[in-house]
Protein backbone atom coordinates (compact mmCIF):
# COMPACT_ATOMS: atom_id res chain seq x y z
CA UNK A 1 0.00 0.00 0.00
CA UNK A 2 1.43 3.36 -1.01
CA UNK A 3 1.55 6.26 1.41
CA UNK A 4 -1.20 8.08 -0.46
CA UNK A 5 -3.36 4.92 -0.35
CA UNK A 6 -2.71 4.60 3.36
CA UNK A 7 -3.62 8.25 3.90
CA UNK A 8 -6.76 7.80 1.84
CA UNK A 9 -7.77 4.71 3.84
CA UNK A 10 -7.00 6.52 7.10
CA UNK A 11 -9.17 9.46 6.06
CA UNK A 12 -11.94 7.08 4.97
CA UNK A 13 -11.81 5.22 8.29
CA UNK A 14 -11.90 8.50 10.18
CA UNK A 15 -14.90 9.65 8.14
CA UNK A 16 -16.62 6.32 8.70
CA UNK A 17 -15.96 6.51 12.45
CA UNK A 18 -17.39 10.01 12.59
CA UNK A 19 -20.48 8.97 10.62
CA UNK A 20 -20.92 5.97 12.89
CA UNK A 21 -20.55 8.10 15.98
CA UNK A 22 -23.23 10.38 14.62
CA UNK A 23 -25.58 7.48 14.08
CA UNK A 24 -24.86 5.80 17.42
CA UNK A 25 -22.83 2.93 15.98
CA UNK A 26 -19.50 1.51 17.03
CA UNK A 27 -17.36 -0.40 14.59
CA UNK A 28 -15.36 -3.51 15.51
CA UNK A 29 -13.49 -5.49 12.88
CA UNK A 30 -15.81 -4.28 10.17
CA UNK A 31 -18.94 -5.23 12.09
CA UNK A 32 -21.32 -2.52 13.17
CA UNK A 33 -22.57 -2.74 16.75
CA UNK A 34 -25.40 -0.46 17.81
CA UNK A 35 -25.91 0.68 21.35
CA UNK A 36 -29.63 0.55 22.19
CA UNK A 37 -31.42 3.83 22.69
CA UNK A 38 -33.55 4.95 25.58
CA UNK A 39 -36.10 7.72 25.90
CA UNK A 40 -35.86 9.80 29.05
CA UNK A 41 -39.40 10.85 29.85
CA UNK A 42 -40.33 13.64 32.26
CA UNK A 43 -43.91 13.66 33.49
CA UNK A 44 -46.08 15.48 35.94
CA UNK A 45 -45.81 12.50 38.29
CA UNK A 46 -42.20 11.39 37.96
CA UNK A 47 -39.64 10.33 35.38
CA UNK A 48 -39.45 7.13 33.37
CA UNK A 49 -36.88 5.51 31.10
CA UNK A 50 -38.23 3.74 28.04
CA UNK A 51 -35.49 1.39 26.86
CA UNK A 52 -35.51 0.21 23.28
CA UNK A 53 -33.87 -2.82 21.73
CA UNK A 54 -31.29 -2.45 18.99
CA UNK A 55 -33.84 -2.41 16.21
CA UNK A 56 -36.00 0.18 18.05
CA UNK A 57 -38.99 -2.15 17.61
CA UNK A 58 -39.44 -3.24 21.23
CA UNK A 59 -39.50 -0.89 24.18
CA UNK A 60 -39.64 -1.52 27.90
CA UNK A 61 -40.75 1.05 30.42
CA UNK A 62 -38.90 1.46 33.72
CA UNK A 63 -40.42 1.79 37.14
CA UNK A 64 -41.20 5.42 37.97
CA UNK A 65 -38.26 7.51 39.17
CA UNK A 66 -39.19 9.97 41.93
CA UNK A 67 -42.86 9.01 41.67
CA UNK A 68 -45.05 12.00 42.49
CA UNK A 69 -42.42 14.59 41.60
CA UNK A 70 -43.23 17.05 38.85
CA UNK A 71 -40.32 16.47 36.47
CA UNK A 72 -39.98 19.10 33.77
CA UNK A 73 -36.84 17.86 32.05
CA UNK A 74 -34.48 14.89 32.17
CA UNK A 75 -31.47 14.84 29.96
CA UNK A 76 -28.29 12.82 29.35
CA UNK A 77 -24.93 14.56 29.02
CA UNK A 78 -23.65 13.80 25.51
CA UNK A 79 -20.11 14.55 26.72
CA UNK A 80 -20.41 12.02 29.53
CA UNK A 81 -23.26 9.56 28.85
CA UNK A 82 -23.08 8.19 32.41
CA UNK A 83 -24.46 11.53 33.63
CA UNK A 84 -28.15 12.39 33.57
CA UNK A 85 -29.70 15.49 35.12
CA UNK A 86 -33.32 15.90 36.14
CA UNK A 87 -35.25 19.07 37.05
CA UNK A 88 -37.91 18.28 39.63
CA UNK A 89 -40.18 19.61 42.33
CA UNK A 90 -43.36 18.37 43.96
CA UNK A 91 -46.68 20.08 44.47
CA UNK A 92 -45.55 21.06 47.96
CA UNK A 93 -41.75 20.97 47.93
CA UNK A 94 -39.55 23.49 46.20
CA UNK A 95 -37.55 23.01 43.01
CA UNK A 96 -34.33 21.09 42.76
CA UNK A 97 -32.06 19.20 40.39
CA UNK A 98 -31.18 15.55 40.75
CA UNK A 99 -28.10 14.03 39.18
CA UNK A 100 -27.20 10.46 38.26
CA UNK A 101 -23.70 9.37 37.31
CA UNK A 102 -24.68 5.79 36.47
CA UNK A 103 -27.21 6.30 33.66
CA UNK A 104 -30.20 6.70 35.96
CA UNK A 105 -29.69 3.89 38.46
CA UNK A 106 -28.96 6.15 41.44
CA UNK A 107 -29.71 9.80 42.04
CA UNK A 108 -28.22 12.52 44.24
CA UNK A 109 -29.69 15.95 44.82
CA UNK A 110 -27.80 19.10 43.85
CA UNK A 111 -25.95 20.59 46.82
CA UNK A 112 -27.01 24.07 45.73
CA UNK A 113 -29.99 24.04 43.34
CA UNK A 114 -30.75 26.97 41.02
CA UNK A 115 -31.97 29.95 43.07
CA UNK A 116 -32.20 33.68 42.53
CA UNK A 117 -30.04 36.03 44.55
CA UNK A 118 -31.45 36.96 47.95
CA UNK A 119 -32.49 40.58 48.08
CA UNK A 120 -32.10 42.93 51.06
CA UNK A 121 -34.76 42.93 53.76
CA UNK A 122 -37.90 44.80 52.69
CA UNK A 123 -37.43 44.21 48.97
CA UNK A 124 -39.33 41.62 46.96
CA UNK A 125 -36.99 39.12 45.41
CA UNK A 126 -37.50 36.49 42.75
CA UNK A 127 -38.15 32.89 43.70
CA UNK A 128 -37.60 29.92 41.38
CA UNK A 129 -40.93 28.11 41.09
CA UNK A 130 -39.53 25.32 38.96
CA UNK A 131 -36.51 24.51 36.89
CA UNK A 132 -37.92 24.08 33.42
CA UNK A 133 -35.03 23.49 31.05
CA UNK A 134 -31.59 21.87 31.17
CA UNK A 135 -28.86 22.20 28.56
CA UNK A 136 -25.38 20.64 28.65
CA UNK A 137 -22.63 23.18 27.99
CA UNK A 138 -20.18 23.34 25.12
CA UNK A 139 -18.08 20.21 24.42
CA UNK A 140 -14.97 22.22 25.38
CA UNK A 141 -16.45 22.80 28.86
CA UNK A 142 -17.08 19.41 30.45
CA UNK A 143 -19.25 19.63 33.54
CA UNK A 144 -20.88 22.90 32.49
CA UNK A 145 -24.67 22.90 32.36
CA UNK A 146 -27.26 25.64 31.98
CA UNK A 147 -30.73 25.68 33.50
CA UNK A 148 -33.73 27.86 32.66
CA UNK A 149 -36.42 28.47 35.23
CA UNK A 150 -39.91 29.73 35.83
CA UNK A 151 -40.07 32.66 36.32
CA UNK A 152 -37.43 33.45 33.73
CA UNK A 153 -33.98 32.91 35.18
CA UNK A 154 -30.74 31.51 33.80
CA UNK A 155 -28.39 29.41 35.91
CA UNK A 156 -25.04 27.75 35.30
CA UNK A 157 -23.27 24.83 36.90
CA UNK A 158 -19.58 24.13 36.40
CA UNK A 159 -19.47 20.86 38.31
CA UNK A 160 -21.90 18.64 36.47
CA UNK A 161 -24.98 19.96 38.24
CA UNK A 162 -23.84 19.70 41.89
CA UNK A 163 -23.92 23.45 42.49
CA UNK A 164 -25.62 26.21 40.52
CA UNK A 165 -25.15 29.96 40.31
CA UNK A 166 -27.30 32.58 38.65
CA UNK A 167 -26.05 34.08 35.40
CA UNK A 168 -26.00 37.67 36.64
CA UNK A 169 -25.84 39.15 33.16
CA UNK A 170 -29.37 37.90 32.72
CA UNK A 171 -30.93 37.50 36.19
CA UNK A 172 -29.59 40.82 37.52
CA UNK A 173 -29.88 42.69 34.24
CA UNK A 174 -31.70 46.02 34.78
CA UNK A 175 -33.66 45.24 31.59
CA UNK A 176 -34.84 41.81 32.75
CA UNK A 177 -38.18 43.02 34.04
CA UNK A 178 -38.90 44.84 30.79
CA UNK A 179 -37.91 41.80 28.74
CA UNK A 180 -40.11 39.33 30.64
CA UNK A 181 -43.15 41.54 31.32
CA UNK A 182 -45.50 41.29 34.26
CA UNK A 183 -47.81 38.79 35.90
CA UNK A 184 -50.11 38.58 32.86
CA UNK A 185 -47.30 37.71 30.48
CA UNK A 186 -46.60 34.11 31.44
CA UNK A 187 -47.90 30.84 30.10
CA UNK A 188 -50.78 29.17 32.00
CA UNK A 189 -48.19 27.12 33.88
CA UNK A 190 -45.96 30.13 34.61
CA UNK A 191 -43.47 32.08 32.50
CA UNK A 192 -40.52 30.06 31.25
CA UNK A 193 -36.93 30.46 30.18
CA UNK A 194 -36.20 27.63 27.77
CA UNK A 195 -34.30 26.71 24.59
CA UNK A 196 -30.84 27.48 25.95
CA UNK A 197 -28.68 26.85 22.89
CA UNK A 198 -24.89 26.83 22.78
CA UNK A 199 -23.19 27.62 19.49
CA UNK A 200 -21.04 24.56 18.72
CA UNK A 201 -18.36 26.90 17.32
CA UNK A 202 -18.13 29.15 20.38
CA UNK A 203 -18.89 28.43 24.04
CA UNK A 204 -19.43 32.15 24.66
CA UNK A 205 -22.26 32.36 22.13
CA UNK A 206 -25.57 31.45 23.76
CA UNK A 207 -29.18 31.81 22.69
CA UNK A 208 -32.24 31.51 24.88
CA UNK A 209 -35.99 31.64 24.43
CA UNK A 210 -38.51 33.05 26.85
CA UNK A 211 -42.25 32.61 27.07
CA UNK A 212 -42.67 35.33 27.22
CA UNK A 213 -39.85 37.66 26.33
CA UNK A 214 -38.64 36.38 22.99
CA UNK A 215 -35.36 35.05 21.65
CA UNK A 216 -32.17 36.58 23.04
CA UNK A 217 -28.50 36.18 22.26
CA UNK A 218 -25.29 36.60 24.24
CA UNK A 219 -21.81 36.72 22.76
CA UNK A 220 -20.02 36.84 26.11
CA UNK A 221 -21.23 33.72 27.90
CA UNK A 222 -24.28 35.41 29.39
CA UNK A 223 -22.65 38.66 30.47
CA UNK A 224 -24.89 40.73 28.21
CA UNK A 225 -27.90 40.00 26.03
CA UNK A 226 -29.66 41.43 23.04
CA UNK A 227 -33.07 40.54 21.61
CA UNK A 228 -33.30 38.64 18.33
CA UNK A 229 -36.91 38.89 17.29
CA UNK A 230 -36.96 40.95 14.10
CA UNK A 231 -39.58 39.63 11.70
CA UNK A 232 -41.39 37.57 14.32
CA UNK A 233 -45.07 38.33 14.98
CA UNK A 234 -46.51 39.09 18.40
CA UNK A 235 -50.27 38.93 17.73
CA UNK A 236 -51.02 39.40 21.41
CA UNK A 237 -49.36 42.84 21.52
CA UNK A 238 -50.64 46.04 19.93
CA UNK A 239 -47.27 46.81 18.33
CA UNK A 240 -46.01 44.14 15.93
CA UNK A 241 -42.61 45.76 15.69
CA UNK A 242 -41.59 45.41 19.31
CA UNK A 243 -38.00 44.47 19.98
CA UNK A 244 -38.91 41.90 22.64
CA UNK A 245 -41.95 40.49 24.41
CA UNK A 246 -42.50 37.65 21.91
CA UNK A 247 -43.46 34.09 22.71
CA UNK A 248 -41.13 31.50 21.22
CA UNK A 249 -42.33 28.03 22.22
CA UNK A 250 -39.24 26.13 21.09
CA UNK A 251 -36.07 27.38 19.41
CA UNK A 252 -33.53 25.11 17.71
CA UNK A 253 -30.08 25.64 16.25
CA UNK A 254 -28.68 23.08 13.83
CA UNK A 255 -25.24 21.89 15.00
CA UNK A 256 -24.08 21.45 11.40
CA UNK A 257 -25.35 24.84 10.31
CA UNK A 258 -25.24 27.11 13.38
CA UNK A 259 -26.03 30.15 11.26
CA UNK A 260 -29.57 28.80 10.93
CA UNK A 261 -32.20 28.95 13.65
CA UNK A 262 -35.72 27.56 13.66
CA UNK A 263 -38.48 28.34 16.08
CA UNK A 264 -41.99 27.17 16.76
CA UNK A 265 -43.56 30.33 18.10
CA UNK A 266 -46.94 31.19 19.59
CA UNK A 267 -47.43 33.02 16.29
CA UNK A 268 -46.20 30.43 13.80
CA UNK A 269 -43.15 28.54 12.56
CA UNK A 270 -40.07 30.60 11.70
CA UNK A 271 -36.57 30.20 10.30
CA UNK A 272 -33.74 32.69 10.55
CA UNK A 273 -30.50 32.75 8.58
CA UNK A 274 -28.23 34.84 10.74
CA UNK A 275 -26.77 36.58 7.73
CA UNK A 276 -30.24 37.88 6.87
CA UNK A 277 -30.95 38.71 10.52
CA UNK A 278 -34.70 38.35 10.28
CA UNK A 279 -37.21 35.63 11.10
CA UNK A 280 -39.16 34.33 8.09
CA UNK A 281 -42.54 32.75 8.75
CA UNK A 282 -42.08 29.40 7.00
CA UNK A 283 -45.27 28.23 8.70
CA UNK A 284 -47.15 30.19 6.07
CA UNK A 285 -46.38 27.18 3.86
CA UNK A 286 -48.34 24.84 6.13
CA UNK A 287 -51.88 23.83 5.07
CA UNK A 288 -54.19 26.67 6.09
CA UNK A 289 -56.68 24.23 7.63
CA UNK A 290 -54.03 22.99 10.04
CA UNK A 291 -52.17 26.21 10.67
CA UNK A 292 -48.68 26.61 12.05
CA UNK A 293 -49.27 26.84 15.78
CA UNK A 294 -47.71 24.25 18.09
CA UNK A 295 -45.13 23.70 20.78
CA UNK A 296 -42.28 21.40 19.65
CA UNK A 297 -39.89 21.58 16.75
CA UNK A 298 -37.32 18.87 16.11
CA UNK A 299 -34.33 18.84 13.76
CA UNK A 300 -32.77 16.12 11.64
CA UNK A 301 -29.30 15.37 13.01
CA UNK A 302 -27.60 15.40 9.61
CA UNK A 303 -29.80 17.53 7.36
CA UNK A 304 -30.32 21.17 8.38
CA UNK A 305 -33.17 21.46 5.85
CA UNK A 306 -35.28 18.83 7.60
CA UNK A 307 -37.43 19.56 10.65
CA UNK A 308 -40.56 18.14 12.23
CA UNK A 309 -43.38 19.96 14.04
CA UNK A 310 -46.57 18.79 15.70
CA UNK A 311 -49.32 21.33 15.04
CA UNK A 312 -52.07 22.09 17.51
CA UNK A 313 -55.28 24.04 17.41
CA UNK A 314 -54.38 27.64 18.14
CA UNK A 315 -57.69 29.11 17.04
CA UNK A 316 -60.55 30.66 19.05
CA UNK A 317 -59.84 29.95 22.72
CA UNK A 318 -56.66 27.99 22.00
CA UNK A 319 -57.68 24.38 22.69
CA UNK A 320 -54.01 23.33 22.18
CA UNK A 321 -55.13 19.91 20.90
CA UNK A 322 -54.64 18.23 17.52
CA UNK A 323 -56.58 20.20 14.89
CA UNK A 324 -60.04 18.56 14.45
CA UNK A 325 -58.92 15.70 16.70
CA UNK A 326 -56.72 14.32 13.91
CA UNK A 327 -53.11 14.25 15.14
CA UNK A 328 -50.22 14.49 12.71
CA UNK A 329 -46.61 15.55 12.60
CA UNK A 330 -45.47 17.63 9.66
CA UNK A 331 -42.02 17.50 8.12
CA UNK A 332 -40.17 19.92 5.92
CA UNK A 333 -37.19 18.78 3.86
CA UNK A 334 -36.51 22.14 2.28
CA UNK A 335 -36.06 24.40 5.30
CA UNK A 336 -39.74 25.21 5.62
CA UNK A 337 -40.63 25.99 2.02
CA UNK A 338 -43.00 23.03 1.96
CA UNK A 339 -44.44 20.64 4.54
CA UNK A 340 -45.71 17.08 4.36
CA UNK A 341 -48.28 15.50 6.66
CA UNK A 342 -47.11 12.41 8.58
CA UNK A 343 -50.00 10.57 10.21
CA UNK A 344 -49.70 6.92 9.21
CA UNK A 345 -50.37 4.83 12.32
CA UNK A 346 -51.75 7.72 14.33
CA UNK A 347 -55.46 7.84 15.26
CA UNK A 348 -57.54 9.06 12.33
CA UNK A 349 -60.10 10.86 14.46
CA UNK A 350 -61.25 11.65 18.00
CA UNK A 351 -57.72 12.04 19.32
CA UNK A 352 -57.33 15.35 21.10
CA UNK A 353 -53.63 15.15 21.79
CA UNK A 354 -51.36 17.86 23.12
CA UNK A 355 -47.58 17.61 22.69
CA UNK A 356 -45.59 20.04 24.80
CA UNK A 357 -42.49 21.93 23.69
CA UNK A 358 -39.93 19.49 25.12
CA UNK A 359 -41.97 16.37 24.36
CA UNK A 360 -40.70 15.61 20.86
CA UNK A 361 -37.23 14.40 19.93
CA UNK A 362 -35.21 12.72 17.23
CA UNK A 363 -32.41 10.17 17.45
CA UNK A 364 -29.28 10.08 15.31
CA UNK A 365 -29.85 6.72 13.61
CA UNK A 366 -30.31 6.19 9.91
CA UNK A 367 -33.17 6.42 9.19
CA UNK A 368 -33.81 8.89 11.97
CA UNK A 369 -36.19 7.92 14.76
CA UNK A 370 -38.71 10.54 15.81
CA UNK A 371 -40.62 10.37 19.08
CA UNK A 372 -43.30 12.38 20.84
CA UNK A 373 -45.16 12.18 24.13
CA UNK A 374 -48.62 13.47 24.88
CA UNK A 375 -50.21 15.12 27.85
CA UNK A 376 -52.48 12.05 27.97
CA UNK A 377 -49.47 9.82 28.66
CA UNK A 378 -48.76 8.12 25.34
CA UNK A 379 -45.35 7.88 23.71
CA UNK A 380 -45.35 7.48 19.94
CA UNK A 381 -42.31 6.63 17.86
CA UNK A 382 -41.29 6.34 14.24
CA UNK A 383 -38.28 4.37 13.00
CA UNK A 384 -38.54 5.88 9.52
CA UNK A 385 -38.39 9.64 9.99
CA UNK A 386 -42.13 9.97 10.59
CA UNK A 387 -43.42 7.96 7.62
CA UNK A 388 -45.29 5.71 10.09
CA UNK A 389 -45.89 5.75 13.82
CA UNK A 390 -46.31 3.17 16.57
CA UNK A 391 -47.52 3.75 20.10
CA UNK A 392 -44.60 2.68 22.29
CA UNK A 393 -46.29 3.02 25.67
CA UNK A 394 -49.63 4.24 27.04
CA UNK A 395 -51.04 5.39 30.36
CA UNK A 396 -48.07 7.31 31.64
CA UNK A 397 -48.78 10.55 33.49
CA UNK A 398 -48.98 13.88 31.64
CA UNK A 399 -45.73 14.04 29.62
CA UNK A 400 -43.62 17.20 29.82
CA UNK A 401 -40.50 16.16 27.95
CA UNK A 402 -38.82 13.40 25.98
CA UNK A 403 -35.12 13.20 25.25
CA UNK A 404 -33.17 10.51 23.45
CA UNK A 405 -30.31 8.88 25.34
CA UNK A 406 -27.86 6.05 24.92
CA UNK A 407 -29.14 3.16 27.02
Amino acid at each position, binding site marked *: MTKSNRDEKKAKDKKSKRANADSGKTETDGRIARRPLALLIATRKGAFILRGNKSRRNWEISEPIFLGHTVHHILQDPRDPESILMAAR*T*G*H*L*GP*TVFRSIDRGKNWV*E*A*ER*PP*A*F*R*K*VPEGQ*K*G*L*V*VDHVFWLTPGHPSEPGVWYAGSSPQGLFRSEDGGKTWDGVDGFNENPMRHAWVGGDQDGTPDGPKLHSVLIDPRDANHIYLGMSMGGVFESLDKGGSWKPLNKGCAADFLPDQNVEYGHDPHCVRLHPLMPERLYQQNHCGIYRMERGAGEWIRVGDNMPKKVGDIGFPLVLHPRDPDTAWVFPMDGTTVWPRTSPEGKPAAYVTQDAGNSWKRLDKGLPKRDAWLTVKRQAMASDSRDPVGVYFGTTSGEVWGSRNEGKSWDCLVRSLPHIYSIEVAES
Partner: protein
Amino acid sequence: MKVHIPTALRSYTGGLGEVEAEGATLDHLLRELDRRYPGFRFRIIDEQDGIRSHIKIFIDMEQARDIRATLREADEVSILLALSGG
Protein backbone atom coordinates in the same frame (compact mmCIF):
# COMPACT_ATOMS: atom_id res chain seq x y z
CA MET B 1 -37.09 20.04 70.78
CA LYS B 2 -39.29 17.69 68.84
CA VAL B 3 -39.75 18.35 65.11
CA HIS B 4 -42.47 16.53 63.18
CA ILE B 5 -41.49 15.71 59.61
CA PRO B 6 -44.11 15.21 56.88
CA THR B 7 -43.99 12.13 54.66
CA ALA B 8 -42.76 14.19 51.68
CA LEU B 9 -39.55 15.09 53.54
CA ARG B 10 -38.75 11.74 55.11
CA SER B 11 -36.49 10.79 52.22
CA TYR B 12 -34.14 13.34 53.78
CA THR B 13 -34.45 12.11 57.37
CA GLY B 14 -33.91 8.47 56.59
CA GLY B 15 -37.60 7.75 57.05
CA LEU B 16 -37.92 9.43 60.45
CA GLY B 17 -41.21 11.19 61.09
CA GLU B 18 -39.93 12.88 64.20
CA VAL B 19 -36.47 14.21 65.00
CA GLU B 20 -34.87 16.16 67.84
CA ALA B 21 -33.14 19.44 67.01
CA GLU B 22 -32.27 22.75 68.65
CA GLY B 23 -32.44 26.39 67.62
CA ALA B 24 -33.20 29.79 69.10
CA THR B 25 -35.32 30.65 66.06
CA LEU B 26 -37.12 28.68 63.40
CA ASP B 27 -34.38 29.74 60.98
CA HIS B 28 -31.66 28.33 63.26
CA LEU B 29 -33.59 25.12 63.67
CA LEU B 30 -34.07 24.66 59.93
CA ARG B 31 -30.41 25.40 59.23
CA GLU B 32 -29.46 22.78 61.80
CA LEU B 33 -31.76 20.28 60.10
CA ASP B 34 -30.26 21.20 56.72
CA ARG B 35 -26.78 20.50 58.04
CA ARG B 36 -27.92 17.06 59.11
CA TYR B 37 -30.13 16.43 56.09
CA PRO B 38 -28.62 18.33 53.14
CA GLY B 39 -31.19 19.88 50.83
CA PHE B 40 -33.99 19.74 53.41
CA ARG B 41 -34.32 23.48 53.97
CA PHE B 42 -34.57 24.64 50.35
CA ARG B 43 -37.47 22.32 49.67
CA ILE B 44 -39.58 24.22 52.22
CA ILE B 45 -37.94 27.67 52.45
CA ASP B 46 -37.27 29.68 49.30
CA GLU B 47 -34.22 31.76 48.43
CA GLN B 48 -35.81 34.90 49.89
CA ASP B 49 -36.29 33.07 53.21
CA GLY B 50 -40.05 32.76 52.68
CA ILE B 51 -41.94 29.66 53.78
CA ARG B 52 -43.02 28.02 50.51
CA SER B 53 -46.65 28.55 49.66
CA HIS B 54 -47.74 24.94 50.08
CA ILE B 55 -45.88 24.36 53.34
CA LYS B 56 -47.14 25.20 56.79
CA ILE B 57 -45.00 25.29 59.90
CA PHE B 58 -46.54 25.28 63.35
CA ILE B 59 -44.81 26.11 66.60
CA ASP B 60 -46.91 24.18 69.07
CA MET B 61 -50.40 25.02 67.81
CA GLU B 62 -49.58 28.38 66.27
CA GLN B 63 -48.74 28.80 62.61
CA ALA B 64 -45.39 30.47 61.96
CA ARG B 65 -45.42 33.02 59.15
CA ASP B 66 -41.77 33.96 59.33
CA ILE B 67 -38.62 31.94 59.90
CA ARG B 68 -37.43 34.59 62.36
CA ALA B 69 -39.99 33.27 64.85
CA THR B 70 -38.35 32.53 68.20
CA LEU B 71 -38.40 29.10 69.79
CA ARG B 72 -38.43 27.93 73.36
CA GLU B 73 -36.91 24.70 74.54
CA ALA B 74 -40.28 23.15 75.29
CA ASP B 75 -41.77 23.96 71.86
CA GLU B 76 -42.74 21.35 69.34
CA VAL B 77 -42.38 22.21 65.69
CA SER B 78 -44.59 20.63 63.05
CA ILE B 79 -43.82 20.91 59.37
CA LEU B 80 -46.96 20.14 57.37
CA LEU B 81 -48.00 19.93 53.75
CA ALA B 82 -50.73 22.49 53.14
CA LEU B 83 -54.08 21.19 51.96
CA SER B 84 -53.61 22.76 48.58
CA GLY B 85 -54.47 20.07 46.08
CA GLY B 86 -57.98 18.92 46.96
